[in-house]
Each structure stands twice: as C-alpha cells, then as structure tokens.
C-alpha cells in the first residue's frame, strides 16, 4: 500500500482516470445488457397484445389494451399443457443421468490410468463431431429395433450422456491439483470414494455448467424428438411450438400466440438458471485454495 501513497497530486490524477474508466465500463455493460434483455421484454409485452396492436406498435412495452386472448387460446385450444409435462419428464431424467455419467467418465479420462484411455478419448472427440443430422434416419431405425420407438425410453435413453459434457468435465478435473487425491489415497479411500467425496465436490463450477447445459439441451432438443416419437401425447414443447410457428393453430401471423408459447417455454429453464446463478458465485469463493 505504501508504494501508492506517493504525492497527493498523483493520487488524484490516478483516481480521476480510474473514475472515467469506471463510467465507460458501466455504460458499455449497460448498453450491452439492454441489447440482450430488450427482445425478451418485447416478447412478454407482445404476448399480452392484440394482433392489431402487435402489428402497429411492435416496440412498445405496454400493451393497449391488455389481452389474455393468446394465453386463453394456448391453454384451452391446444395440447400445450401436455407438451409442457413431456418436456419436464424428459429433462429431469436426462439432467440427472448426464451429471452422473459425464463426470464419472470425465474423471476416468482425466485421472485414472488404464489401457485404451487414449482411444476412448479420441473416440469421444470423434463422436462430438458427429452431426446430429447424420443420425436422424438410422437413430429412428435403432430405436425402432430396440422396441422403444414412441416411448419415454426412446426419448430419454439416447440423451443420457453427451460427449461434450465429458470433455468439459475432463478439462476441469485436469485442473484440480493431484495432491488432494493423494492425501485421500494415503488415508485408504477407494477410487470411487475419492471421486465421489473428494474430487466431485471440488468440481462444483463444472458440475453447475453441466447441469445448466443438459437441462437446457434436453428441454430445447428438437430433432431427436422428431425422429423418436409420433403420437400427440408424447409431443414436447419444442415440437409443439415449432408446429405453432408454421401456423398450425391459426391463420395470419398470430404473433401474440406464438410469442406467448415461446415465453412460457422459456420460464422453467430461466428459473433453473436463476437458482444456479447464485451457486456459480458462491462456488468460486468456496473453492479450495492450495
């Protein structure tokens, strides 16, 4: 500190420069934040507008008159509640599976030495590069062959693990100092125990990333559900809203209905994010220091 307590003049000049910098920084941040948030405010506002109001004054954030017609239409005249329930079931199972299996594999690839590890890792990288569309046709065939076409199993099982998640976990585990595990090993802990009680709790930031990504990924998945289901009772939100977008429910543009559907679809995943947002902050402070 003493080094900075030079003459009072330097000090004032420094702080003024710092102040200008701060103002510029916050102005920049606020402008960017506005650009990111504004579309969603417009979305919510428009869902409460009449179609005429949405067309004439798209940018206004205050609907006049306020209309619930879009929501009424969605809940009374469509399978929207069914879509919602289906997306929820799939998302919960997929997220639990991915957090567990991805971190297990990520840990093995980062820390355990076994013959063939390099090949497994190379295969994962290759799998990551497989475009989902390559799989659309034959994925349907395999699911059909296994007798799980048009069922929850067919929707959930193929999504239970993802190569990108393993990759993220592996990268994170490599950054944790080995010394921590060695201590536990000396204390006589087995491999699974070291993974479960020592390393996994330290990987919290990465785990939260995985939870967010897989919750998002399965809630937002579209192409897999296009090929693994056909019955209306198994339609997910993505499939349902995509059919709305192509105007299945209505004539005309019907932006209020479409935007209302899109807005409701965003809520659960947004709530999920707000819960974990807090934990992201705490995790960085709770991390073990060397």
């Amino acid at each position, binding site marked *: 500190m003493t080094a900075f307590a030079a003459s009072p003049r330097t000090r004032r000049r420094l702080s003024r420069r710092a102040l200008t910098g701060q103002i510029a920084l916050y102005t920049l*941040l606020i402008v960017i934040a506005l650009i990111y948030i504004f*579309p969603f405010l417009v979305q919510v506002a428009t869902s409460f507008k009449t179609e005429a109001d949405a067309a004439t004054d798209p940018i206004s954030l205050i609907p006049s008159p306020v209309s619930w017609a879009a929501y009424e239409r969605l809940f009374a005249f469509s399978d929207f509640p069914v879509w919602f329930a289906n997306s929820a079931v799939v998302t919960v199972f997929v997220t639990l599976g991915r957090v567990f299996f991805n971190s297990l594999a990520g840990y093995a690839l980062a820390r355990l030495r*076994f013959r063939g590890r390099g090949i497994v890792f190379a295969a994962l990288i290759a799998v990551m590069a497989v475009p989902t569309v390559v799989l659309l046709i*034959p994925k349907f*065939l*395999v699911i059909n062959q296994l007798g799980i076409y048009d069922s929850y199993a067919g929707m959930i099982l193929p999504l239970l693990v993802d190569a990108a998640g393993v990759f993220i976990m592996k990268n994170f585990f490599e950054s944790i100092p080995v010394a921590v595990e060695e201590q536990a090993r000396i204390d006589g802990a087995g491999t699974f125990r070291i993974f479960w009680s020592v390393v996994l709790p330290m990987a919290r930031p990465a785990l939260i990333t995985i939870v967010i990504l897989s919750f998002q990924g399965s809630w937002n998945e579209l*192409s897999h559900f296009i090929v693994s289901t056909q019955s209306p009772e198994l339609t997910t939100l993505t499939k349902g809203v995509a059919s709305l977008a192509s105007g299945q429910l209505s004539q005309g543009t019907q932006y209020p209905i479409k935007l209302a559907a899109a807005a409701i679809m965003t809520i659960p995943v947004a709530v999920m994010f707000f819960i974990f947002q807090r934990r992201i902050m705490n995790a960085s402070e709770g991390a073990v220091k060397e």
Partner: protein
Amino acid sequence: MAAIAPVGPRARRSTPPRRAGSPRGIQRGEAAAGWLFVSPVIVILGVFMLVPVVMALWVSVSDWGGRGSPLSSDVSFIGLQNYAAVTTEGGLATRDFGIALRNNAWYVLLVVPLQTALSLFLALLVNRAILRGRGFFRTAFYFPSVTSSVAITVLWLFLFSSSGVVNEVLSWIGVTGPNWFNDPGGILHNALAAVGITQGPAALTDGGVLGVSWWDWLAGPSVAMSAFILMAVFTTSGTFMLLFLAGLQNIGAETEEAAMVDGASGWQRFWRVTLPQLKPVLFTVLTLGLIGTWQVFDQIYTGTQGGPSKTTLTPAYLSYQAAFGSQDWGQGAAIAFMLFAIIVFFTIVQRIVLRDRPVSARRARQYQVRTDRRRQP
C-alpha cells in the same frame, strides 16, 4: 534431449508423474475402475451414435427407399451413386447442395469468430471481482442462451419482420430496413450494387463448382441468413461466456498480479498472461462453435424452411428434407456424411493450428548448451 523433455505445462498436466512406489494392485484396480467409469458413456454412445452411424453409412451407399429395414435382402448396394448425385451430376440435387454449402460456409465464417470474440470479451468484462452488479450482467448475457432455438426463432421472426422492432429502430436513424426473412439478396452483392456493380466479371460468372457460379459463391450471406447469423451470435455468446468464466476462475490472481507488478500493460497481461492460460477453453469454444455452426437445423426447420430462394438452406436441413421430405434416403445420408467430413476436417485443422507447439530446434539447442555448460564446472 532428456533435460528438456518434461517442459511445458501441458505435459505436466495431462500425464501426472507416476508415483514411484505405487504397488501393482492399485494400478490394476485403477484400470478396472477406469473402464467401469467410462462404460455407461461407451454403451449409450455406442448404441445410439456408433451403430446408427454405421447404418447411415450403409444407407448412403444403398438404394433403400424408406420401407422396411435397410438391412433386408431387397436393398442393394449401389456404390457412390448417391454421392455422385449431389456432387458431380450437375442436376438440381447438386445445385441445392452447392447452395446449401455456400450458405452454411458464410454462416460459419461470420458466426464462429464473432461468437468467440464476443463471449471472451463479455467474460473478461464480468470477471472483475470489484464489478458491482456482475451477477446482473452475467444473467443478462446468459439469458438468450437458456432460450430454446425454437422459441428464439419465433421471437426473431417477429423482431425482424418487415414492420418489426429492428426496422422500427433503424427508421429512427433514417434507414429503411429490408424485409429480412424474405430478402434473398447476398449482402456482398447488395454492397456492390450500391456502388453500381450488379454483374460479376465473366471470369467469375462463367465458372463455378457444384452448379453454383463463383460470383454466387461470393454473394455473401443473404439478408435472411444475416438475421440468423445475428441470432446465433446473440444466443451462443452467453454459453461460451460461461465456459470462459470457468476458465478465468481457474487462473489464479497471483500470476496476473505478478505481471502487474512487473509493469505489464492491460493488453500485455491479457495477451501474454491470461490468453495462453485460457487455451484449453479457447479450444473447447472454437470446437463446439465450429461443430454447432455447421449443423444449423432447428432455426431453419422452425423459421424459413430454407427460403427465400433457398438462401437459408443448409446441408443439415437439406439432408433432413431429402430423406424425410423427398424420400431420397440415400442422398440424405450422403449429404449428412459429407457434412460430417467437413466438420471433422475443420476440427482437425483447428487442432493442429491451436496445439501447444514443441520448443523449436534452435531454442532447444540453446537450452542444451546452457545445461551442459552448467554441468561442466
């Protein structure tokens, strides 16, 4: 050589030095645990990705018409005919594939650098410990990423409609916005047209590949595709910002502080200290970005179905359309595999470009000499 072998943080990180005294039993147990840990991933990815890939490969070289099993005896091997139809025969299928590649190439060329730079920039901005309201800013930037591509496409169709929000904002500064999702004009062609060039030189218009002239390859993304490009940058920057943030949190403040004490400027600290340590994250972001941008599907399926004038057609959507729409399953699979090849190619190129370079021979000799000299006296 042995003296310089273990340099570089990478070597140290990825293969921790084997503990000298560890008994064999533990090693064997470790191997078993290793395989056990990766087995769920191997089984599920094997059944739902590897097996389907092999089947798709077969479909791409067969005349399977979508009825019954592709493995049944009345389906026959037709060699590379499906591949030829979309690459060399010069018909509609070839031209569609060429257009789809053109559209997607522009998309990748613009989206990948923009999303990487923007997400790193955002991460650096909100990583400051003293920043007030950083939770708010992180939330704001990440929010578009939590929205599904279906939902965001619906929103984007509204924002970019001819009398939508974007055009209204543009009108404030006296610009008449285009009818975004209905405008097939390439933005580079439009820019040239603004200075009076509407026809390309004969050298460019006469030749071409995949049924698309060089002039049309150079059209740039269409106005409609540009709206999708903006959407991609908008929706992905938050996710990648999170990855960069996770990386930044792993970097101890000590190195940064040391560099500051040494008098390094902000730019030097970023370029010489922070960025090299972010290399693994950067690699992840670029890889995921490249893989993602080459498979644009949901947006096109929900939004434009390839229109207007096929300028938002992408190979991914074309493949789906060929198989499930036109019942050309073989061609659909062939397109998918060529897309696969493109992605693998770019991933490998990028891996080579971004790998940790070994110490150059000249530098190595210097170290060698120095260590030798030190040993002599």
